[in-house]
């Protein structure tokens, strides 16, 4: 019986792994193909099924004037916007979450739970709802097609995530720690940054990772709100989706876009194994 369970478990884990890896393997294979290898039916293994070329990978560093995508600048833009948006969201979201976890707020019929829901409910809005008003607003502010404008929008996108995770996290940090700090002579701000903050690093790391994931993978806002100056990675890659799509370049670019977050996956796993994450998530 036990053997049966174990066999079943390994079988299931293996099957799922295959499912997870399959599109990546396909993308890796495709990234070495050319037009004929793509349109001649499914091919898999280089040299056996088709003659590999490096065109797809080389195109990542070529200018669009030579059929490439030149993802270096979009890559850096994406890194900046994601990092800055996450940072601002984490800072403001952590502060707000701390207030919502520790203090009681009343505003008419609104209580803490309602304010928390207000933050989280921003995620209910499909991007298409906000895209046009955002466009007009950023236009009025002269922030269209700027890194700053994108960061502003990403804050709206990401702060709800930071608040959601950090409220949960702070609810599990004993309030007595803050009280002790106050009694020991810290004013509420000092208590927060000298005592609460250093003990919230796991939560902040988790919230930061979620922000980075959701920021890095967003397409829609970046697509609507930028023109020629600030191009983000997903937008640059989707711009390869032509009527004669260079699948090889697109596959190579897709793989590159995943790479930085694979590092994030490793960090998440490390925190999981150390048990640090457990306190950070409900």
């Amino acid at each position, binding site marked *: 019986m036990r053997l049966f369970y174990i066999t079943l478990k390994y079988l299931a884990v293996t099957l799922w792994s295959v499912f997870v890896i399959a599109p990546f393997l396909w993308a890796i294979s495709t990234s070495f193909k050319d037009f004929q290898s793509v349109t001649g039916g499914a091919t898999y293994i280089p040299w056996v099924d088709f003659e590999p070329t490096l065109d797809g990978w080389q195109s990542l560093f070529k200018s669009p004037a030579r059929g490439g995508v030149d993802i270096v600048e979009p890559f850096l833009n994406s890194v900046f916007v994601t990092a800055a948006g996450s940072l601002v969201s984490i800072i403001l979201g952590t502060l707000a979450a701390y207030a919502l976890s520790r203090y009681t707020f009343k505003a008419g019929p609104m209580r803490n739970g309602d304010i928390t829901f207000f933050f989280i409910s921003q995620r209910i809005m499909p991007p298409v709802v906000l895209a046009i008003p955002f466009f007009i607003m950023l236009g009025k502010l002269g922030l269209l097609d700027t890194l700053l404008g994108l960061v502003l929008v990403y804050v709206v996108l990401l702060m709800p995530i930071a608040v959601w995770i950090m409220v949960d996290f702070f609810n599990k940090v004993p309030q007595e*720690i803050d009280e002790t700090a106050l009694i020991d*002579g810290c004013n509420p701000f000092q208590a927060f940054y000298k005592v609460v903050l250093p003990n919230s690093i796991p939560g902040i790391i988790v919230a930061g990772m979620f922000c980075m994931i959701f920021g890095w993978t967003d397409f829609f806002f970046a697509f609507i709100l930028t023109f020629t100056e600030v191009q983000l990675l997903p937008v640059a890659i989707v711009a390869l989706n032509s009527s004669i799509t260079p699948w090889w370049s697109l596959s190579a670019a897709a793989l590159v876009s995943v790479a930085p977050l694979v590092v994030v996956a490793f960090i998440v796993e490390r925190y999981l194994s150390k048990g640090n994450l457990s306190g950070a998530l409900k």
Partner: protein
Amino acid sequence: MSLIASNLSLKPDEQYHLDDICFEMLQGQIYTIIGRTLSGKTTLLKTIAGLIAPDSGGLVLDGNDFGSIPVWKREVAMVYQQFINYPHLTVYENVAFPLKQRGTQKAEIHNRVMNALSQVGLEGFQSRKIQALSGGQQQRVALARSLVKEAKILLLDEPLVNLDYKLREQLREEFKSIFNTKASADSILIYSSTDPVEAMQLGGQILVMDEGRILQQASAKEVYENPNSTKVSQITNDPAMNLFEGMVGEGKIILSPEIQFDSPTHFKGLPEGTYTFGLRAVAITLGEIGFPFAIELSEISGSETFLHLKHNEINLVGLLDSVQSFSIGEKVTVKFDISHLYAFSTDGSLKSSPYGGLM
């Protein structure tokens, strides 16, 4: 130096509540607040610390308004029941934290921290991380951090309740000796507890709290000898004082047709009528002559045996200072030491005490 509380009140809001609290506390004394869980002890301590603002009433320290000073400027220290320390700091940094916050000189910090650590028996632990300590050691760190401030008011909120029995006994002894030296200095020490024994052992003044009110404030001895109400008698005795209804008349006390006995001498002058009588478990033993009771349950605790006894409507807990076993339902003869009998009016206030207290 004195701390005066006048009419502190806090309307029920979730778990916090205070109801018209008044007291005066003097320096160099230990005050033990005793009360059941949720009786308002922690609320009162946090109010004194400044973590909770009362709805009304005030606190005055040495003639100055204390209640309006924010918590971080009040000269208080507090130890929690949950071993609260700063997990990201070492033992040394934890103890030094309040001093650094105050801007004390480095050298002085060092001296005072090392001194405080030795007071609580943690020499050599200064560079340890908090998580690497046992619960008892963590609580010692918390205590050291409170002592090092030499605050005017030291608050201890059930500091031993989460420790195991042995450690609790040991730490309590240490606390006592630390407090005795500490209390000789210029602090007011306020200690809260649910455990009557602990309160009695610490000596000093006792404040009995229930439902946000102070029921009685007196020395430990006085509270023990003359609990001013049935409620106090319940809260300050473990096991709770036995209470039963009966009549006083013609020099006799009648509990039931079978249980009647002569009125003790200290009841002289007690008007005839119906009373609630109180008798501690120690005053109820088995004897050759006495009243017939049935054993409901017997528990052995250390070298003693608690007996849960029943006679018609009367339920009592008695205490034998030896280990014996009984079968449930067994009939026994129970002896009352009536020289320790209390009489309370039916609404609960003390009418007569074996120690001759308030009549």
